[in-house]
């Protein structure tokens, strides 16, 4: 039988995960429990779904999204700018959107991430719980570092900035080849098989790889083209 832990606090959850080898947090479960999850089927789970905040509020001039808010919660909120709703819509399936959390998507650090490029372009700061208690970490640092064992509690976003997104995928439900966001805070992207780019320079220097859907040459070309397209729209 799989081990499942439901602790009474974030602190205890964090400690439990550190203490149990291979344990992972469970939020929406749309990543962890899916067939192709990197998480093995018998891997212990620390269920944080009832503990992380879910509300979406404005605070100190920024938009704050609770880690447990789902993609659909974000779409349904009147406070959220359209570019972020569009990013959430990249997850085509409504039932997945009702299950998958924003923080779960960030923590998954997928190279076909729906949200990370847009959130980076929105100058997102993560509010996390870790070794030293609660603290703020820029999303860019979190992604650079390849994540960590902290629990993401909330995301603080510059909702006043302008962001344009363009995702290249074969179909609405396919994984993306590239997902690009361009905005006031710069150019960001994730590229299948290659990872994240934090500026245009990264995108140029990135090592592109062939995968089962697209070739490296195509991804390189189209990533560049997406940036240009978005810049043109932005004027």
């Amino acid at each position: 039988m799989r081990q499942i832990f439901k602790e009474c606090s974030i602190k205890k959850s964090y400690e439990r995960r550190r203490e149990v080898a291979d344990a992972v947090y469970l939020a929406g479960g749309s990543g962890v429990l899916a067939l192709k999850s990197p998480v093995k089927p018998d891997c212990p789970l620390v269920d944080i779904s009832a503990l992380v905040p879910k509300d979406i509020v404005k605070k100190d001039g920024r938009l704050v999204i609770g880690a447990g808010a789902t993609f659909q919660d974000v779409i349904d909120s009147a406070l959220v700018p359209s570019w972020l709703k569009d990013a959430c819509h990249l997850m085509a399936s409504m039932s997945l959107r009702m299950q998958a959390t924003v923080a779960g998507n960030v923590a998954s650090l997928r190279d076909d991430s729906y949200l990370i490029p847009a959130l980076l372009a929105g100058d997102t700061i993560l509010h996390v719980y870790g070794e030293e208690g609660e603290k703020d970490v820029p999303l860019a640092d979190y992604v650079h570092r390849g994540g960590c064992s902290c629990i993401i509690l909330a995301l603080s976003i510059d909702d006043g900035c302008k962001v344009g997104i363009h995702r290249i995928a074969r179909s609405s439900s396919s994984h993306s080849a590239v997902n690009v966001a361009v905005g006031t805070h710069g150019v960001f992207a994730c590229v299948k098989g290659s990872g994240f780019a934090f500026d245009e320079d990264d995108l140029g220097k990135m090592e592109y790889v062939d995968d089962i859907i697209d070739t490296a040459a195509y991804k390189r070309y189209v990533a560049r083209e997406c940036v240009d397209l978005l810049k043109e729209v932005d004027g």
Partner: protein
Amino acid sequence: MITFTLNGRKTTTALPQDMRLRDALYAMGCISVRDSDDAEGFTGSDIVIFDDRLRSSNLTLLYQAEGADIRTAESLKRGQELNDVQRAMIRAGVVQSAYNSPTVALILTWLLEKRPNATRDDVREVLSSVFIRDAGYEHFYLAVKLVQEMRRYGEYRTPVSPSFRENLEYIGKPMDKIDGRALVGGEKVFVEDRVEEGSYVLDILRSPFAMAYIKSIDTSEAEKLEGVEAVITYLNCPDVYYMQAGQGNPEPSPYDRRLLNRKVRHVGDRVAAVVAVDHETAHRAMELIKVEYEPLEPVFTVEQAMAEGAPLVHNGRVSYVAGAPDDLDEYNRTADERDGQVIYQFPLHGDIRHNIAAGAHGGIGDVEKAFKEADAVVEATYQTSQVQCTPLEPHVCYSRMENGRLVLHCSTQVPYHVRRIVAKVCGISENKVHVIKERVGGGYGSKQDILVEDLCGYATWLTGKPVYYRNTREEEFIANSTRHPMRLTMKMSGKKDGTITGIYMDVRANTGPYGNHCLTVPMNASSKTLPLFAVQNMYYDLNTYYTNIPPTGAYQGYGAPKGYFAIMSCMDELAHKLGVDSLQMALKNVVEEGYMLDILKGLGEGREGTVVPVGSCGVKEALRKGAEMIGWGRKEKSDDPDWAIGKGFAMIQQGSGLPGLDQSNAQCKLLPDGSFVLLSGGADIGTGLDTISAKIVCEIMKVDPSKVAVVSGDTDSCLFDTGAYASSGTYFSGNASLNAVKDLKRRMLEEAALQMGQKAEDLDLEAPGFVVSMKTGDRLSYEKLSHDALAGDGRGAIVGTRSFATANSAIPYGAHFAQVAVNRRTGEIKVQKFYALQDAGTPINPEMALCQMYGAVMKSIGHTLYEDMVLDKDGRCISADFTDYGVPMIGEAPDDFKAVLIDVNDQYGPYGAKSISEIATNGAAPAIANAIYDAVGARVRSWPITPEKILKALGKI
């Protein structure tokens, strides 16, 4: 213990808390919660309403349900009464193979609770989570509209389809599908619902190599394991050669396999089969099986298979049941006994020592001369890919013993071929096998192939145990039949005035490891395309090669979608080269009623074909109407300079069954109370065949549908039928039902004549169930008629029995038009408009016919733009799930999507009907490819047409 509210009732369960909620709900009796993707989270067959939100129950563990409020489709019915959404879905014609129909009904019910005035966008949003392969998405919008109308006005106001044949009451009119209530209501109708507690499982150890000999296999440890009932390998399986194609006997496919073979021929081929008490035990047993392989160099493409000295996929002894060549002994001199045998029922022009499984060639006129004398000649090669049927219900079988007989619950298109093959494999007579075709949760051709019933049935026969087998989704990709990849080289010539003077097709098909449909699928690429052209010089060469890709077989459209991609793309190229409008070229060179089809002579299925004239034919009307609808010749301009818009079309045809080869039988009984049961050998695979039979009874007997029951596809109670393939259902099984009901009418009138003391010719039938004398006005109710016939002094039960076989063809025609937008910079493609116009003769179930067209077009948009089975260098399929493989969802549906039925009455079909759905897979690939060329000038000649290929054709990468 986990406690939650399930469909309004507080429920407590002791099932393991880490169990998937889907499995728990199914175990708790919520059988509408299905699993189509092994928890990939893609298809949505497992969606429930969880605390008022949609949620995948497969991606949820049971413990998470603690305290939750969960609703499944079981909540929708009140007693026997379906809810209004379920009723509207049936009315709209979307309840077809219906594996996930109850779930979709649940989702739409939930939507309409939240938004009673739900818009098209709202419906699109909620259906984003469900994969619908059979009916497409279009009529789901209509179903929601119908619910809204019923709630507002107390009636449906939008017609679900046009009606045909004024003089008939049921035929050609929309009518609720007779099995619709069971399907959308979530009743126990699928194979998995029949599996009894305590049944055994069958699991298969599969080959990790694309080609290898099994040097040794040791199953002793596995056999010793507690709970293992049997381990079957090539060493102990019956030494019986057969093939799995599920075709009529004698088959035009070689018998090139046994249940398990010493040589494995694809990654995923059977190595050993384990019968055990549960999957855990079976998997442990598989780990204990020690196999030593001698890997061989594999071949994957036609080019590799054709190469001089290429490794041979089959190098066993060849024999022929009839027509063996004289030099057979010499031919077999180099045979390797480890390869087993290849037995041809009759010559298919195969040459396995060159990897050729089958071949054919033929034609009319002189193509070389035509090419020499032409104003322009185009020569090009088109490549189609390996495409998966992806039925929502995977291949399953449940077999058990009953009184010394083997009973198989199957999801099959060919119950009688299953009976024959399983009896053959088990070495028993056919009376020992009872096949029950359950409702089929999607087949699309792949359930013509007998891919699991052979082994599952044998496992039960061997062990005496009830055995359940179900392919995992990965197994569906690696060990299920697929479209044969084909390389088609076309040469077409024409004159400046647009006359096509010559067509040559060189078809090289890849049949993979076994020869299922190896002649007939590729044949179809020519035999369903060339007869559409009124061209004097046409020739085709065909060779099918064995390789080591995953197996191929039948898929809706058979070889025709590939042939049409090549021939209609090539015609477009020729039109451009000659500077003529391609629509005018089509109209100028297409056949019409009465045109003598000389080309058919060389296009029989391994035998000489019969030359007949074109029968009823709506192709020109489809072309003209489609052109008008799409604004052919008008260049559309996009607001965004990066996007270019183009238009394309394809004219198409198919067949209706296999005249001269197929046969169907039916029986219709008058019951004691004057109601009817029709027994049809035909296999309704969700397409509404049973409803066709019911309508025929209603029409002739002048009773309403509540007086008719249809039993079909049960080999014990129904008479023989070749099965549901080659678009045979309506034409063959429908005509058999028609003949049987006419026979019953004759017998009823004869009996009534005796009972009424009148002449049979003075009697007729009258609604709602009377025999009436046209002379005297006397009436006799069916009830009294039947009762007296069955009385102690009666003359016995009144039953009509008839068969249908024919040499006549009823060919459906059509034209498909596409408008696409292509992004010049990124290569992205959007199908903006798609109009499918088809002549199905009299569409007996018009609303279901439209849904089949929508579904088939979506499938073909899939293979044109998205779907791709990718193999790695070792032959392993690395896109073996829905996401990576890339099936189209609602997001891929054209913005403006219309299916139009062209009204033509056929001379041979039942009430003038022809087939409807296979043909609808033929148009999208060429129509879209031609539209892309029209938009940006990029000619892509291979599937799938991806943005990358477009950019390459434009020289951008």
